């Protein structure tokens, strides 16, 4: 059974690097944007976009390529944020180690939760991941180290490798940009590796993949852990940029937001979730003064996407141009 309307892969023209030419061009455009944008737009806003772009791209590894809807990705993002913030502030770790620890927290949590959730499929998988994430939320409300309603505040940005101070927005911007591009290339490599091929085969037809001798549960779990690892990295980076980790990061609405970003940009596309993160974050920024209208607008976009626009923006463009983006 084909799970979701992922964009069909055409036979692509290949560049010298072995990647489809469309990907090389799109990657170039994206990197150019990342490099030039801070000179035009507010860098703090851009860093928010980049962390969410990484988060959404990591989420898309599951929904777009494995066909698993994890409705609780805020748990890994938020716990990554908490652990990074705590380790940098309380343990005095350097920022890169703090972010790495955040990622490992996401991965460890993903290993446990993924192991439980992949015992069921489809809608149950979504409900189980959501429920487990809610458990993490309540844990964070109660646990002493998270600071409850206050969260962990005034997290120092510290010095990268103990050398380079990151207090300046334009300095930390390049660190965030490097984390994003690095994470993105890592995910790109996963999706286009033999492992990625097997995972897509599982999405298309799991019984057949089993009959070909693949242990599909192991593949799903590995993909889950990879995704939660990068979600934790994204959360940790975010907490360093803003100097704060709060309950908002682990709340179910955060899980909904990352689904929305992926859906808007185009699920199962390589570049769509990052574009979706840009669009959704920008929208929230401009609508922020209007309070709960942000929620209403998010809901309307959800409904519109599901009813009329299932391939998302890049998915539609890719289908028009007969490209694989």
């Amino acid at each position, binding site marked *: 059974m084909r*799970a*979701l*309307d992922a964009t069909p892969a055409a036979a692509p023209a290949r560049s010298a690097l072995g990647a489809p030419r469309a990907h090389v061009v799109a990657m170039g455009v994206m990197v150019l944007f990342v490099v030039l944008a801070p000179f035009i737009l507010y860098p703090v806003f851009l860093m928010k976009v980049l962390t969410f772009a990484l988060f959404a791209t990591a989420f898309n590894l599951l929904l777009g390529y494995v066909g698993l*809807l994890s*409705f609780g990705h805020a748990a890994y993002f938020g716990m990554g944020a908490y652990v990074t913030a705590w380790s940098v502030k309380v343990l005095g770790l350097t920022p890169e180690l703090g972010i790495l620890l955040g990622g490992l927290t996401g991965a460890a949590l993903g290993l446990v939760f993924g192991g*439980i*959730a992949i*015992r*069921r*499929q*489809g*809608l*149950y998988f*979504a*409900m*189980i991941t*959501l*429920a*487990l994430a*809610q*458990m993490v939320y*309540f*844990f964070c*409300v*109660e646990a002493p180290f998270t600071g409850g309603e206050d969260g962990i505040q005034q997290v120092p940005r510290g010095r990268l490798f103990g050398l380079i101070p990151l207090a300046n927005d334009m300095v930390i911007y390049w660190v965030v940009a490097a984390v994003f591009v690095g994470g993105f290339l890592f995910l790109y490599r996963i999706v286009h590796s033999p492992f990625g091929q097997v995972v897509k085969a599982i999405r298309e037809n799991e019984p057949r993949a089993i009959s070909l001798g693949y242990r599909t549960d192991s593949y799903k779990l590995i993909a889950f852990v990879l995704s939660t690892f990068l979600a934790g990295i994204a959360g940790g980076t975010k907490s360093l940029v803003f100097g704060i980790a709060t309950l908002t990061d682990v709340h*179910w609405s955060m899980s*909904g937001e990352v*689904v929305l970003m992926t*859906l808007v940009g185009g699920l199962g596309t390589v570049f769509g979730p990052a574009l979706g993160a840009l669009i959704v974050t920008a929208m929230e920024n401009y609508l922020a003064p209007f*309070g*709960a*209208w*942000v*929620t*209403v607008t*998010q*809901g*309307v*976009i*959800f*409904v519109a*996407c*599901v*009813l009329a626009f*299932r391939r998302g923006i890049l998915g539609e463009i890719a289908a028009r141009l007969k490209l694989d983006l």
Partner: protein
Amino acid sequence: MHTIFGIPAPLLFGQLLLGLINGGFYALLSLGLAVIFGMLNIINFAHGALFMTGAFAAWGLLNYLGLPYWYALILSPLLIGLFGLVLERLFIRRLYGLDHLYGLLLTFGLALIIEGLFRNAFGSSGMPYQIPRSLSGAVNLGFMFLPLYRGWVVVVALVVSLATWAVIEKTRLGATLRAATENAALVQAFGINVPRLVALTYAGGVALAAFAGVLAAPIYSVNPNMGSNLIITVFAVVVIGGMGSILGSIVSGFGLGVIEGLTKVFYPQASDTVIFVVMAIVLLARPAGLFGKTA
């Protein structure tokens, strides 16, 4: 004052009662989810938002039209049921035949819209709703004081749950419903209007949620966020019980409410998470759920 396991008896029974009340809400909501899932193959994420809308309908009927609780108990589920019909016709109907996940995403979007609109109109803090005069007060049961309204909620939730079970399992309408769940095309061939049956099923499930909302209105303050946290817990209840069995939904709903209440007595820090822990254990031991037939 005597104690049980070192816990003052009134505290123990009080939390047990609160557990039964929450269990009643879990049962009513998971029942609606299960019935809707059976016919429409979607998980209705908007269920919590519609539960909240039901409570607000009761509040609005009282404050704008002066209609007391007893009218709201009938009118609110009817109104929200009609609203459910509209939602089904306008949105959900377009998704039949697509992957089930789209139904979840669509109803999630609907929930965001409904909750956002209510938050805009009423703020997040909540409105008080008086207990009806005939059910205020308490009776002394000897071992504890039972607030009448709380006792009433437990009894009514149980009766309505069992009535729903009886309708589905014992009546001709229920038989048609179950047949259509098994094989819609065949039932349609027998001359039954299946699309209408599907729409009415959605309305019925939603009406149950609204009914629970009216019951909840005097206990919790009526506020726009009352449904969203509840619905996630109900998802866990549904995973534990397995959606195949109506009676299973009722038993696991009340059972988990009691477990939650007891946790509040013995280890309060874990009371919010205990249902999710139970879910994880059940999934490890019996992936199909306690009452589920197949995975």
